[in-house]
């Protein structure tokens, strides 16, 4: 019974607008009056997800679904996919380029941070086509 559904497109390598989608999501949740702790966790997870799309994908989107019980964030992209998810999930592992690291990203905490901050975390990836992450945050 999804009540509210919003889609935020994220372009690859667009560092100018990087962070804007997660900022909009955060603002929307605050307007709704979602509990501060939940907003904080979604802020962290959605920002990591957005930066991942900018750095690693060929473009994608974040879809926010809100109902009375839960908030779902589906992050999907067109991209190279992740060959070894278990390795990618481990803290400190990163395939980011030196350029990206110079910008302060690519610490290899992204996926593990998303998993830690969400109540349910699901990742599916196909090499050569793309990755979809589904994060659920329970309300109350």
């Amino acid at each position: 019974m999804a009540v509210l559904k919003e889609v935020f497109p994220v372009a690859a390598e667009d560092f100018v607008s990087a962070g804007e989608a997660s900022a909009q999501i955060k603002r929307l949740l605050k307007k709704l009056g979602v509990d501060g702790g939940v907003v904080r966790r979604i802020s962290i997870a959605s920002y990591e997800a957005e930066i991942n799309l900018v750095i690693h994908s060929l473009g994608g989107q974040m879809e926010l679904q809100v109902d009375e019980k839960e908030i779902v964030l589906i992050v999907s992209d067109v991209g190279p996919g992740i060959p070894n998810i278990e390795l990618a999930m481990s803290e400190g592992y990163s395939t980011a380029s030196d350029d990206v690291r110079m910008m302060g990203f690519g610490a290899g905490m992204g996926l593990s941070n998303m998993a830690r901050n969400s109540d349910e975390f699901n990742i599916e990836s196909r090499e050569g086509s793309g990755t979809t992450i589904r994060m659920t945050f329970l309300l109350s």
Partner: protein
Amino acid sequence: MELYRHSVRLDKGKCVGCTNCLKHCPTEAIRIRGGRAMILEDLCIDCGECIRVCQHHAKVAVSDPLSAINRFRYKIALPAPTLYGQFKNLTNASSVPSGLKRMGFDAVFDVARGAEIVSRAVAERLAQPDCPHPLISSACPAVLRLIQIRFPELIDNVVDVRSPMEAAATVARSEFCQEHGVRPEEVGCFFITPCPAKVTAIRNPIGHEKSAVDGAISMLEIYGLLSHQLRRGSVKNQDEQARLTALGLGWARSGGECACLGVEEALAVDGIENVSHVLEAIENDQLPDLRFFEGLACSGGCVGGPLTFENVYIARNRIRALVASLPKDPPTATVSEDLHEAMRPLIGFDRPVRTLESMKLDTDFKSALAKMDRIEEIVKKLPGLDCGSCGSPTCRALAEDIAAGDAKEMDCLFLLKDKVRAMAQQMIDISGQTRD
């Protein structure tokens, strides 16, 4: 709930209903209704941006007139560090306290000293093992209120230490009473303020119930009178000069508090938009190594306050020169162990900083969801130009106002134009279908 009294107000007679303040308000707290600006009190943080941008001087800060000091038998002036950057050729800093005394004050206690007392207390909090990361400065009341409204999750990071103005008033009153053997209620402490947010913070303190300060007088209000006194030079009294030190005075500029604390991994940000951006980053956990955050609403820091006379860059530079000429003792040297201990029970917060829920669309989550759905529908119809002609700052804000029942779709000039055109076409169609 207590009545919240803002310092920033509208002078209706001067307002022409232009959109300057509307477009610059960082919290979208202004609407134009009936051809005049209107401040949404729940959202206003008293930052004074609207005072700066209003070409018609219709936005004003209500502070106390100088005559307010006569309510008290004994009067103490608490000049903000910023005051020292307002005057040309201020070769001797002690002339400022002398001038204030000639204006009717019995004593002068520099808020720069209060800043050192606060810094020592904050440094102690930073050294505690359970100190939040990052610790956020409580010095700027506009930023505090911004956190209450837009960043409630960061409230627990705000250091629970009162502002330099409060510390200064507490010590000044107690010293004066001891020295002259008078009762505390006979003594009035007046802050010489660079900003409206401080005026509001005296009437409605954040984090404590009552302010130790009895009133706030705007720097603009006393500027002429004081500069006239300054031309007469200082009285032969070296005491006051000796009290002013570099690190306390440095609080006038952005970064002054960080410098006074002397911690690495501290970040000072000035300008309300910049502060918002960095608070967003802190909320996203983008700055995990940061230990202290100093956010000041005004560009340049307090020297950029809307109630100052001098241009912010000129004032900054004067403060810099003055700081360079003063001894650079750290707060551990300038604030005695005895004073630090005596202030310990007085300087902390005595009530929690509350979350303000003014951003919420509705108190009921289900109704808020329905409203958000409606807002998204309306946003799609609007032109997305954020022109402000409807009286709301952005198209999204108009959509929110419509959903809240405070505006109508036809308030949008573009939707109105389309409607008129469609109606005109209908008229033409109808006239073609009738007999001559």
